């Protein structure tokens, strides 16, 4: 099933995804597979390898050590419970782990920002979707230097628009919060961010 994705050039070879550290990714893949079979040793190894990254992300999102520590616990309990739904090859294992952590931390952050009506049910749905879809585009994505690439593409945006994207991802800011922050009407904010996302996509697919 060939996929044509906006100028993403499908690549033939499957696992050259992580030039920076293919071994580590393969390891994570294996670890997750073993965790899904309730392998405790694999789980502690997975924790040892990934917890600093996920804890850093929780701290970055929550800005509160105690909350981040609680969140990290929940995140790994979820990982333990849901590892069998992770599908190798759909997204990179680290992306899956980051998504579980990010969505949980954002959920906590939104709840503790009282009065904010973010969308209620999306967080888990996104994870569920990552988990349940059929084999996907992980193989078809050319992802060399992906990190550098999205940073470079964000740099091409006007600074505050790039900030808005980061705020949405790393702070779970809603459109209403973004609008307040940048002092623009809600609809303007949405138009604005959507345009930024379009530019980002165009840049990322170059």
């Amino acid at each position, binding site marked *: 099933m060939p996929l*044509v994705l906006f100028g993403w050039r499908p690549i033939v070879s499957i696992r050259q995804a992580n030039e920076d550290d293919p071994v580590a990714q393969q390891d994570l893949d294996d670890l997750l597979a073993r965790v899904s079979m309730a392998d405790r040793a694999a789980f502690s190894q997975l924790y040892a390898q990934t917890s600093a990254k996920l804890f850093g992300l929780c701290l970055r999102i929550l800005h509160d050590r105690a909350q981040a520590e609680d969140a990290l616990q929940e995140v790994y309990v979820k990982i333990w419970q849901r590892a069998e739904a992770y599908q190798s090859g759909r997204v990179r294992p680290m992306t899956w782990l980051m998504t579980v952590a990010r969505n949980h931390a954002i959920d906590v952050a939104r709840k503790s920002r009282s009065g904010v009506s973010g969308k209620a049910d999306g967080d888990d749905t996104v994870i569920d979707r990552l988990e349940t879809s059929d084999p996907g585009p992980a193989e078809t994505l050319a992802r060399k230097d992906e990190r550098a690439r999205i940073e470079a593409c964000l740099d091409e945006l006007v600074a505050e628009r790039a900030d808005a994207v980061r705020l949405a991802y790393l702070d779970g800011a809603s459109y209403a919060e973004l609008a307040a922050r940048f002092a623009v009407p809600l609809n303007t904010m949405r138009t604005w961010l959507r345009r930024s996302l379009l530019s980002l996509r165009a840049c*990322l697919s170059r």
Partner: protein
Amino acid sequence: MSDETEYPDEDSVLAAEYVLGLMPAAEAQAFSRRLMQESGLRDLCDTWSEHFAELANEAEEVRPPAAIWHAIEARIFERRKPFWRRLGLGQALIGGALAAGLALAVLRLGWLEPEPLPLNAQLTAEDTQEVARIALDPDSGEVVAELVGLFPDPGRARELWLIQGDNAPVSLGLLEPGVVVSLAVPQDLRAALAGAVLAISDEPTGGSPTGQPTGAVLATGAITAS
């Protein structure tokens, strides 16, 4: 079933908004429905997830304190121990006066346990017939139960009820002869489990049609922690 349609810009932006959690709830639901049917759209979301996950790398790595791992380990692996040990309650048992001289026995069940269930922790009096083995976790509301005696006649079923104080019985579900089933206590009832009563009634196949016990109550017992 991917089709080869090139998705319009609009869909890519929607996918990004969805992944970021920016969509209003109603839109997100509508988008979820599309996702279930359109693998190309799922691919778009995955692509965005990969991109955005790179932003997460902006966060500096921080080694969490060792206590976190111990807490996670305890939460995941301690489930093998009976919940009442985790709670420090000693042992929980369902005892008390029993209809028809029958008893519900609380048993040590670890629900991650791959081995056959241990069958040696019966807490009932010697002269009572064991009807069911039940363990509850007040935190999660999980109930695991196995009907080991008083199997239903054809066309009948055994239903488990939770009775708190003077409230009407609440069905926890059907018990299966010789099979461990997993049931759940509704969230709002979890706080007051100690002292509540469990009962098993005889019901038509599929359970009580009325939401209340319709047949004979075969066994009852209080949930106690001692």
